[in-house]
């Protein structure tokens, strides 16, 4: 927790929780870390899929659906690999569709509701800007599979980050109404940014082995990029918010359960269903 800005964080909200999985062994730690990477992508991909057929224009509809596809592709690779690391015969589908909410390890940012288009783009901008830097680091991971997935995905994530930044600027620098909505979206999402830079024991353990990336290393770069884009958008960076953490330990907002209910309904009801 030393990596976080000086904030008033109750220890109960971030300390060891009832649902923590012990990860003394390297295999267990790797499994946990891969769940984090895979669940971030899976949950945001599912969220973006909710826009399909509802976006403001057909071009935006296509772009959000394509983001979702990229993310679900990432999730497939990471969760399949997580299943291998765990060694209990679970594959990516099993992990995606047959775990309960307390077992998910995604950050809280990605499970936040879509809200309006501005809120969705605020979330995308804050997440993709982070994920791009994370994958740039992970492309040099000592774990060959993680490095290969990250090197492949970073090309797509760069695109996500650029497009989301363009929308933050266009809406922020648009009408009073569009600026109000973008500022509101950023206000909603900013509380969940500190969690992205949380370097807990598990991350530091794996970073020490060259497998994981310590996110504190690119915090300054991230903040610089966010401030640059917000300045261009004419929006004051949200300040004075109380950070909310816990997703990495399975402490989720109420929104995730509803998302999983929609996502998991079919495979749980008809476990043998196939295309």
């Amino acid at each position, binding site marked *: 927790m030393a990596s976080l800005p000086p904030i008033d964080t109750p220890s109960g909200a971030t300390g060891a929780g009832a649902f923590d999985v012990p990860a003394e062994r390297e295999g267990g730690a790797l499994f946990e870390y891969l769940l984090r990477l895979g669940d971030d992508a899976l949950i945001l991909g599912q969220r973006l899929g909710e826009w399909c057929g509802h976006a403001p224009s057909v*071009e935006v509809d296509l772009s959000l659906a394509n983001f979702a596809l990229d993310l679900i*592709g990432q999730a497939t690779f990471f969760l399949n690999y997580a299943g291998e690391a765990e060694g209990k015969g679970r594959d990516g589908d099993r992990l995606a569709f047959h775990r309960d909410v307390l077992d998910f390890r995604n950050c809280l940012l990605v499970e936040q509701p879509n809200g309006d288009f501005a809120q969705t783009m605020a979330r995308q901008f804050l997440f993709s800007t982070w994920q791009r830097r994370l994958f740039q680091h992970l492309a040099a991971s000592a774990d060959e599979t993680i490095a290969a997935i990250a090197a492949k995905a970073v*090309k*797509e994530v760069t695109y996500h980050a650029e*497009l989301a930044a363009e929308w933050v600027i266009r809406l922020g620098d648009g009408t009073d109404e569009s600026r109000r909505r973008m500022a509101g979206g950023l206000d909603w999402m900013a509380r969940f940014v500190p969690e992205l830079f949380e370097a807990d024991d598990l991350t530091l353990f794996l970073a020490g082995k060259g497998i994981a990336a310590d996110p504190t290393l690119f915090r300054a770069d991230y903040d610089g990029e966010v401030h640059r884009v917000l300045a261009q958008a004419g929006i004051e960076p949200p300040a004075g918010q109380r950070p909310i953490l816990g997703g990495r330990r399975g402490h989720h907002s109420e929104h995730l359960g509803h998302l999983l209910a929609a996502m998991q309904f079919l495979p749980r009801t008809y476990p043998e269903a196939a295309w």
Partner: protein
Amino acid sequence: MVKQLAHVPVKGHEEGVWQILAAVPDPEIPVLSVVDLGIVRAVEPDRVLITPTYTGCPATQVIERDIRAALDAAGFRHVRIETALSPPWTTDWITAEGREKLHAYGIAPPGRGAVHCPQCGSAHTQEVSRFGSTPCKALWRCRDCAEPFDLFKCH
């Protein structure tokens, strides 16, 4: 009666395997084969190495199935299909023949210079949407002949 297919060892038949794969179309851009697209990385005695184009490309599974069917039909049932992610696929791997086929089909091939309209050849073009009908394409239009067209994105 079960019809037994002969096992054909690949060794010495690599060229033949490449020809079989060159006849397997990409499901989303059927004018291109999986070889034209640079999806096939290597043909070895016991395996064919393929690579996905985009991380989330929904055609990936169909491509693997189609390659499997083509190999089986030619008697290469024992040849495994394996996926390699690294190094990541790039549009630079699309063959010269593939680029010509794209252009003839009405899709502007990926490039780093000006985008030329595949209909009239004009460079007076503009982007309509960065995302098109598939993950690999962007939507453009020609400002001379006014035709909309797909651009295969540089990746």
